[in-house]
């Protein structure tokens, strides 16, 4: 089986055209790979570029240089240069993502927000909702909230909807951007055990966890993002 995720020599900077085109280098020479069943954690201080790396792997941020290789069907796709249709296909079938914040859509219930990635993969809506309900129950989200759009939920409630949505599929790659940041101890434990189950199922995970206990509990390896800092170029 090919390695689920190989990042090689990736560089990222932002050019701020509205501020005289100043260039803000973020990371360079980013190289790592993740094996099936492994959870690698990006470490480094705030602003080091951890979220930017996750977003590049998800195709959400442009990549200046380098390759991000994911096996897709019977070929290898380079997400750094893939066209939008291919990126959407890879997201549907290969990569799940729990973002730092939930982006809500008006009028769509929490249950449907969670079920949506399964429905997008052609799974029957009733079956998808059942699975969504089981996940939300496991994460202790009160049942009275399930039929409501998450826009008015608390930070921790939204985060649990987001986690359930990311974990509902069996995508071979899962990206986690501080999924436990606004959770209480009990729900953090739930997420830790969900991550362990994903490992047993052979899912490759790349995450960011500020909470040290959670990191200890799930990380197989820390990838130090400060090693990718751009040398000799002032921001």
């Amino acid at each position, binding site marked *: 089986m090919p390695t689920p995720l190989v990042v090689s020599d990736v560089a990222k900077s932002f050019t701020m055209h509205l501020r005289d085109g100043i260039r803000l280098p973020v990371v360079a020479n980013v190289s790592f790979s993740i094996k099936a069943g492994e959870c690698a954690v990006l470490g480094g201080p705030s602003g080091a570029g951890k979220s930017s790396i996750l977003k590049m792997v998800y195709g959400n941020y442009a990549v200046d240089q380098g390759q991000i290789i994911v096996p897709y069907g019977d070929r290898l796709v380079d997400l750094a240069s893939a066209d939008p249709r291919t990126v*959407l296909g890879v997201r549907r079938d290969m990569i799940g993502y729990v973002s730092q914040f939930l982006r809500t859509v008006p009028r769509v219930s929490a249950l449907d927000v969670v079920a949506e990635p399964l429905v997008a993969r052609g799974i029957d809506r009733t079956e998808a909702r059942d699975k969504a309900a089981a996940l939300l129950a496991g994460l202790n989200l009160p049942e009275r909230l399930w039929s409501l759009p998450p826009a008015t939920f608390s930070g921790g409630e939204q985060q649990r909807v987001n986690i359930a949505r990311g974990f509902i599929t069996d995508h071979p790659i899962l990206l986690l951007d501080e999924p436990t940041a606004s959770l209480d101890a009990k729900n953090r434990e739930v997420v830790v055990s969900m991550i362990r189950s994903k490992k047993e199922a052979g899912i490759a995970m790349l995450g960011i966890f500020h909470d040290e206990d959670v990191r200890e509990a799930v990380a197989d390896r820390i990838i130090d993002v400060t090693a990718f800092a751009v040398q000799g170029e002032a921001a």
Partner: protein
Amino acid sequence: MNMSDTPLLKVKDLSKFYGSRIGCQNVSFELWPGEVLAIVGESGSGKTTLLNCLATRLAPSAGSVEYRMRDGQFRDLYRLNEAERRFLMRTDWGFVHQNPADGLRMTVSAGANVGERLMAIGDRHYGNIRATATDWLGRVEIASDRIDDQPRAFSGGMRQRLQIARNLVTNPRLVFMDEPTGGLDVSVQARLLDLLRGLVSDLGLAAIVVTHDLAVARLLSHRMMVMKDGHIVETGLTDRVLDDPQAPYTQLLVSSILQV
């Protein structure tokens, strides 16, 4: 051959000049089945000109637009015969105007507005037509007891939903939309957007949506093209363009809004 691996529309070097003024210039892209493309930019950037050239409502000055007909053959839209063009307009395509009055017949009933498109494709059975019209009014959340009312009596949001039903009733493969939520109150917009989002994905429609509202593009589209002064300045996956805009003009557009 798997048809979803073949584009529905192929646009090459499309330009439209109004005298010496540029409407749009050298626009090239392909659209696949089930794909929603948003064309964004501020007013005067050429969005509607481009949309009208694609939908054969305006003759381009140069370039080509090819469409894959139901028989699988690509045809140059500007070399179609009259029967083929009528088939596209009446059945295979929809066109949702910003102002519902431009896409509806205001003095016939809601039911007839929807039924008319069915009759145009040969349905003659009154009972079937009425049943289908009622079903479609329901899908756009118009109560069935309004079927005999004229759209003149409807609110702006209801008129726009009726226009959408009228367009979708023939199972089109491609729908053009020009500012579909423009001119509506914000709360009405949210409801319409949500409805459109559901319909487009349930029906697997391909759509080209012109909007100056980046939130509309975010919610509805897979892919975006940003236009300025008749040119495409940036194109890409919608969330990539909005979250990491590359072109100076796109950065300006994204920074001018509160949050999308």
